[in-house]
């Protein structure tokens, strides 16, 4: 009797142990949707899906044996991490342009097209080889053209793109690679494989709102994938891996005073994803005050974000029984409170005309009341030959055009600078600065370039479109930010603000692609004419015409000869 009791209790313990080792406990999935009304009557919808594998860091993944149990963690992502020694990765695929001045800062700023950067683990012996493998894996995973990237479009930034997660070893930029593809078109073929990485897919939960027809009929659309080693506790004694899949989209509101979630997305949420430990919908009224929400929000959360306080109406997906309806009392957007100015902005444009020289002007302005330390990264392909001797940097203090000083003459404006020259078909140009910008001041950088020549087979099929210069990247740590979009997933006291300039589209001199054939035809004709006359001269003999033989010829020849004589006489 005693023995059987012992046995059963042993079995129970065994079962408990067994279940503890199962997937349910060490993997976690959270999702959230933030809806924010923008001042010009548009609405931002930002989705975050965070899949966390507790206590398994990217380093642990590389040490996996032949037996791996992924559970709900996306297997392709984990395989990628372990095979290519990825420590941290950020990828975005964006269509459309985010309007900083009108909408404030986005939740995640990404340039048009594709952007990717990755930190590799210290154990990676050949980072370039891993990077190449990673690019191929990602282009397969997300149907993007990352596989076209080579050393001419890969950058190793020194001051930007610092790791954000629990990082192992010294931060040495030799383990960092950055690239961007401003040309990359983004569409459903990227969304479909991306949404396959979601544990609940597009069937239930927030993912069920992903209806491609509506999502791409918008002003701005961006999907991103982020892999970060995350601390499990405050002391960071144990590190896990967090994969964040985000989607941001800016809708134009449907006409009429009321709209609902389903009218916006063309779909509705049937039920919560059973795998998610938390799924919320946050509603940020932002500057609009006269708004009614139906049903009533489940609670109001006052989120402390940087120094400002954001009031969010929150719905819990579990208890949400009906569609969320939003009605505006007043549809006149001009009555909305004036938008606070962006603390930091970047502007870039081209100067010059023709196909020879050109210039790039970059204006970085600090509109804040405090000085800002800003790191600036500019990347130019090798075929725009940057003339570094023409580089000028001017500091405009208090936005007064009469108050312009050369940056080099001031003491502490430039804290760091580094230029690296390009190498034809191997390396691109890279310019890095750390500026210290006084309040209400701006820095303008001007540099000239010469347009280079490419080989005829290096031109893309649509060469007359022009060539892109990547967006310049500006990074700064800000402590207050009135027009940042609140992050629903984390609380932060300081905020790493990263903004991108517009990419520049420059036309290059394009050869006539049919020219080789034209040349061949032309030369052949010249040779044929030359050869023909030479041949005739050397082979033909000129003999006097015999009158008697002429008589023997036919009637037609005689008539022609008569006619000839007739015309000759007239002359």
């Amino acid at each position, binding site marked *: 009797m005693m023995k059987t009791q012992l046995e059963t209790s042993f079995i129970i313990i065994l079962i408990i142990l067994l279940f503890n080792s*199962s997937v*349910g406990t060490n993997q976690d999935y959270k999702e959230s949707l933030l809806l924010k009304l923008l001042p010009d009557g548009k609405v931002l919808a930002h989705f975050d899906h965070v899949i966390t594998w507790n206590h398994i860091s990217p380093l642990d993944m590389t040490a996996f044996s032949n037996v791996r149990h*992924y559970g709900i963690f996306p297997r*392709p992502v984990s395989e990628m991490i372990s095979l290519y020694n990825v420590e941290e990765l950020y990828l975005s695929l964006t269509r459309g342009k985010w309007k900083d001045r009108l909408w404030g800062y986005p939740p995640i700023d990404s340039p048009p097209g594709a952007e990717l950067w990755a930190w590799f683990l210290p154990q990676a012996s050949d980072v370039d080889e891993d990077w190449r493998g990673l690019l191929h894996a990602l282009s397969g*995973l997300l149907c993007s053209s990352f596989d076209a990237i080579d050393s001419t479009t890969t950058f190793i930034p020194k001051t930007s793109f610092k790791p954000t997660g629990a990082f192992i070893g010294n931060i040495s930029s030799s383990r960092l690679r950055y690239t961007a593809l401003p040309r990359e078109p983004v569409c459903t073929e990227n969304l479909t494989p991306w949404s396959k990485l979601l544990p609940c897919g597009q069937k239930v939960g927030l993912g069920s709102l992903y209806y491609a027809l509506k999502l791409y009929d918008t002003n701005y659309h961006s999907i991103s994938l982020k892999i970060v080693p995350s601390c499990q506790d405050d002391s960071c004694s144990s590190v896990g891996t967090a994969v964040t899949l985000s989607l941001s989209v800016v809708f134009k509101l449907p006409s009429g005073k009321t709209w609902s979630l389903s009218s916006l997305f063309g779909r509705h949420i049937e039920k919560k994803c059973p795998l998610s430990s938390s799924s919320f919908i946050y509603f940020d009224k932002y500057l609009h005050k006269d708004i009614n929400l139906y049903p009533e929000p489940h609670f109001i959360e006052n989120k402390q974000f940087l120094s400002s306080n954001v009031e969010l109406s929150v719905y819990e997906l579990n208890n949400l029984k009906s569609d969320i309806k939003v009605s505006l009392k007043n549809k006149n957007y001009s009555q909305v409170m004036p938008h606070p100015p962006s603390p930091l902005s970047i502007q870039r444009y081209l100067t010059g005309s023709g196909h020879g020289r050109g210039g790039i002007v970059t204006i970085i302005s600090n509109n804040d009341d405090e000085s800002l330390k800003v790191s600036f990264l500019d990347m130019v392909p090798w075929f725009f030959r940057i003339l570094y001797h023409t580089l000028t940097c001017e500091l405009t203090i208090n936005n007064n055009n009469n108050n312009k000083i050369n940056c080099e003459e001031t003491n502490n404006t430039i804290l760091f600078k580094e230029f690296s020259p390009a190498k034809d078909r191997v390396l691109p140009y890279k310019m890095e600065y750390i500026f210290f910008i006084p309040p209400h001041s701006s820095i303008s950088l001007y540099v000239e370039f010469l347009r280079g020549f490419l080989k005829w087979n290096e031109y893309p099929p649509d060469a007359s479109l022009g060539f892109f210069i990547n967006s310049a990247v500006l990074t700064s740590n800000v402590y207050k930010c009135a027009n940042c979009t609140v992050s629903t997933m984390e609380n932060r006291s300081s905020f790493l603000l990263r903004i991108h300039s517009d990419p520049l589209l420059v036309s290059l001199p394009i050869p006539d692609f049919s020219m080789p054939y034209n040349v061949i035809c032309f030369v052949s004709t010249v*040779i044929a004419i030359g050869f023909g006359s030479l041949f005739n001269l050397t*082979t033909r*003999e000129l003999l006097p015409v015999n009158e008697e033989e002429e008589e023997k010829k036919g009637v037609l020849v005689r008539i022609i000869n008569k006619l000839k004589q007739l015309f000759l006489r007239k002359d």
Partner: protein
Amino acid sequence: MVYSRGSVSLLSIVCVWLFLGLPVWWKTTTVYRSTLPHSWITSLQHEQQVLSVLSCNISAISLITGLDLSSFIKNTSYFTIFNKDSVINVHSLVKEYRGEPLSIEDLLNKESVSNPVGHYSLIVTRALEYSTQYKNERNLFIEYINNTQLQEDINDSVYKLCGVETFNKLLNNSNKKESLRRMKISPGYDISIVVISSADSAVSEWNIDISTNQLLLPFLKHNNIKKIANFTISSQLLYFTDVEFMTSEDINCHTVSPAHVPHMISKVDAKLGSTVSQWPRLTFVVYVPHPTQRPLLIRNRNSDNTDSFLVPQWGGVIFYNDYVQTRENDTISVDMNVVMPTIVRQLKLLLGINDEHKSETSPPYNLHAWDIDHLLMIQTLERLSLTKVSLVSLIQLLDNVKNMVISDHIQTEVVQSLNDLNKCVASIADGQWSVAHSQCETALDHAEVAFFDPTILALLYFPDDQKYAIYIPLFLPVGFPVLLSLIKLLKSWRQSRHKEKTS
């Protein structure tokens, strides 16, 4: 005969054309093609696809005093003919230990314990008490009862050891079902176990860890299996996959007809996503049906119901019906120990292991050494014929398409492949199968590298009309007057000769 000034210059122009222009044109436009051992490869084509003679060496040992085995085994040294042109050559050798009765330990001390591949010992004893201990070596024990029974047993055993049935099944083209089921040959396989839940609740309890360690790994780490392939195992949970079945209700169960199964496979495949591995993937789907569809079974053509099916060269699907729903239908638990034996059985079939002991799906997996040996032999032969096929088709391709570039490294690959192929053939003839296995593997690798080399295709899509577009503007206006005057000259020559003759 007097040559005119014109005809001399014409002839000299023609000479310049022929002796300078033509070679320069030929030299500048020829495609680089390094010489391949053409005759060597074409000779492969005429060789038989499967090696004609497979040798099988059996030494028969009797542990029973006074029993003369030579009278039994002599009868069985025969040729078994199958598949038109291949033959198993059985060499039998009777070893006798006279005198004191031998114990197994003594015998195994005297004999080498580990026979090489293709060499087996047939041991006749009175009792089978030791047989399990040495089962995994290449020894087969026969219990002696009486003479007629012994003759039958020996015949059966020789049949079994030499793999007559296995070779028949897997090499014979007429037996498509068996040979198509097997996975494509590869140095390794990725085993992926996927639980697809169609129930709306999450799988919270899943003992995949323990189950793989206890049931699957002992099989894959089995000494014999390791010789033929390497394995990785991964497992995944997938939800909301759109995998749905057209079911029809039956007494006590829901059934699916086999015709609906392919739709499911393509949906699962789409959901699995890309892999970074080079090895082929074996997918085993554990499908958890919706509570309203339980129990879900497949109805065979002969009206049998089953809960699992095998997809040739892909993997298997198992319906997991007996799950427990806990906490108000919130979560479900999946017990992999129930499912794993089926997975192991399906894995055996997909690898092509002769599964004699169908019941034995739990450790210790008593895989017979000879079953794996036969698989090793088949793999070797298959690699051998694949190498031949790819080399022959490469040479045929290069013969047919004249503007394919053959660079030097393709030549070295082809030569290396041929060398390895010859070594492999020699090793097979010697009966050294383990060596032959790796030699044929490298031969196939080299052949495939040569066949799939991207430089071959460099000029493949350079069409002929573009060539003419470039040649015509030059050659037509230049060549036309030359040809015409040449014809004229020839005519005048003939006329003058005619005149001379008549005069």
